[in-house]
């Protein structure tokens, strides 16, 4: 197997506060293969954006990486000095944020921002950098790119601005692009264009993408694999088709059922998960999802599940651990809901 572009192992991110240390990301591991698009989904507060910030070394103090490893193409990057990290950020990891207005400097012309980025990371002449900037703008579909080089960010529309940000992120051919809610601030008709652009341009360059979003539709259209987070922990990770169509973690399965879709019967009540995600200081013992889970049994309330193989995915749920003493009733119900439980006890078999 080829070496992953990004490898996150047992990542822990903590926020020391007066009332004690809050663990925002707890023992999270995943890999991104070369050229792969990994979608990271979860509800607000699940730790999606923090994971991205931890990878690029931009955690807001007092937040800190308190454990685990982050490797970029095999090289450890979580313990680098800020100066070293700066040479990686922008050069080897490109970033796209939700609001393009905050990632562009309003006082500089678009062309200058692009050439500055290129010149910071590449030993080429100013003229060559400008040519490259022009080609980039053309590539991301900015009409009349030549004249737009000297325009300011406020002279672009929202969608065009996000195109510029994509050009900026990919200016020096990074191995990995971290896109944090890249289309959330955009209208649907523009969102579709930006997703298509991001997909095409990263595929052309062979860049891997970590796509952070709360919109499952965007993930379904874009990602190869998905990682579902819940309360700072991994719930499920697997190929996008499997996670969307045959989710194996009860949270992932509840989440998929709760999404209103353009297919299906509109008169049917939406499936809903009772309650809401726990606050950081109040994460329950055992599995973080157990108080809201319809399949929780004794073990879920005391022990924290590892990620177990579940169909084509990995799910952090005891339903998938052959060592769990699954109550037959629970196993039966879970199997009915399409969850491939580890081992259906003899009593539950027909």
């Amino acid at each position, binding site marked *: 197997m080829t070496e992953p572009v990004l490898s996150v192992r047992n990542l822990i991110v903590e926020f020391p506060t007066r009332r004690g240390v809050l663990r925002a990301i707890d023992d999270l591991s995943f890999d991104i293969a070369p050229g792969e698009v990994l979608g990271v989904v979860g*509800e*607000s507060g699940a730790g999606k954006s923090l994971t991205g910030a931890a990878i690029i070394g931009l955690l807001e103090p007092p937040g800190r990486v308190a454990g685990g490893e982050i490797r970029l193409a095999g090289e450890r990057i979580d313990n680098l000095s800020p100066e070293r990290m700066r040479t990686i950020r922008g050069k080897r990891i490109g970033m796209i944020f939700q609001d393009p207005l905050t990632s562009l400097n309003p006082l500089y012309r678009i062309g200058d921002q692009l050439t500055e980025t290129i010149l910071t990371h590449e030993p080429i002449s100013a003229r060559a950098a400008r040519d490259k900037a022009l080609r980039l703008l053309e590539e991301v579909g900015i009409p009349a790119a030549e004249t737009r080089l000297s325009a300011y960010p406020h002279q672009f*529309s*929202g*969608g*065009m601005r996000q195109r510029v940000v994509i050009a900026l992120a990919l200016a020096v051919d990074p191995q990995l692009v971290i896109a944090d809610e890249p289309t959330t601030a955009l*209208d*649907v*008709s*523009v*969102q*579709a*264009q930006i*997703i*298509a652009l991001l997909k095409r341009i990263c595929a052309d360059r062979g860049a891997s993408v970590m796509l952070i979003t*709360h*919109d*499952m*539709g*965007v993930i*379904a*259209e874009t990602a190869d694999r998905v990682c579902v987070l819940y309360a700072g922990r991994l719930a499920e990770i697997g190929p*996008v*088709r499997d996670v*969307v*169509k045959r989710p194996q973690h009860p949270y992932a399965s*509840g*989440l*998929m059922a*709760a*999404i*209103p*879709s*353009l*297919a299906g019967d*509109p008169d049917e*009540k*939406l*499936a*809903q*998960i*009772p309650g*809401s*995600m726990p606050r950081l200081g109040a994460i329950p013992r055992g599995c973080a999802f157990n108080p809201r889970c319809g399949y929780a049994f004794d073990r879920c309330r005391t022990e924290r599940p590892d990620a177990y193989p579940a169909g084509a995915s990995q799910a952090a749920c005891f339903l998938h651990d052959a060592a769990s003493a699954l109550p037959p009733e629970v196993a039966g119900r879970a199997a009915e809901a399409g969850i491939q439980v580890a081992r259906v006890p003899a009593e539950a078999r027909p």
Partner: protein
Amino acid sequence: MTDAARNGEPAPPLVEVKGLRRVFDLSKPLLNRLLEGGGRVSLTAVDGVDFSIRRGETFALVGESGSGKSTIAKMAVGLLRPSAGSVTIDGIDVAGKASADTQRRMRRRIQMIFQDPYASLNPRWRVHAIVEEPIKAFGMLPDAKERAARVGELLSLVGLDPRDGQKFPHEFSGGQRQRIAIARALASEPNFIVCDEPTSALDVSVQAQVLNLLRELQDRLGLTYLFISHNLAVVRHVATRVGVLYLGRLVEEAPARELFSDPKHPYTRMLLDAVPDIEMEGKERLTIAGEIPNPVNPPSGCHFNPRCPFVMPHCKTVVPPVLDRGNARVRCHLFAEG
């Protein structure tokens, strides 16, 4: 029972919107105009919108930013005066000159639920005071004990504990706050509620809870909703009829089922195609380039003409009339006879 209902005819609509128009003046102050030159600048946010909502139904308005959704919502509850046209509720003009007493009675029956439950609840008030406010404002229950009992009832109705009344808004999650906002809206016993993006600020699992609650309340209390959203999948789930707005004009209006199964206007089709597809069927897309033009200077003729794949020469000059097509009404030259 009304005469119409006795004759087996459908009841007259509760809400009627006729020729609604709102123009905002964006001009610089007079002195600047005189010194620097330049004339008046105006933005037509809502341009001749007609629709009606029958009792117990949900009419959804969908559109992208700048389409005029929220401006219509504000005019429907009387927070903004129309430049022309009217919104009538049970025959009474919301912005009209009916007697103070009639106005008061009508206002009690209109309520609104806002997008952001973090901004729409006063952080310094306890929940019971927030929910009690409309009851007091309309002088509905003079006895404090009765009011407290009513607040408890309202909180249970939206799935909260009556004891939650003693807490402050910050002690609740986003979804629970939206429930408080709904309880407050129900306090004056309205029959018409305007929901302006009520779930856009919420996570999906919580969004489902709130949508189900709104629907349950509609069935129980016979409420009529004007539901504003940019999310088509959500609209499909709640609406009886849907109106699609583009730059202030209603380009299509149809029963929800028909709009989603047989969209007519090219813009509606494009919107439906642009929704990221969780079903992953790999559907054929009608992708459309370009973005919404600046509403200060919209394209002439049909506003959609620069982005429309079926554009014809007269689309650029002639504003399309509203055409009736079965149960649907569509504003597009493609559907003209001949």
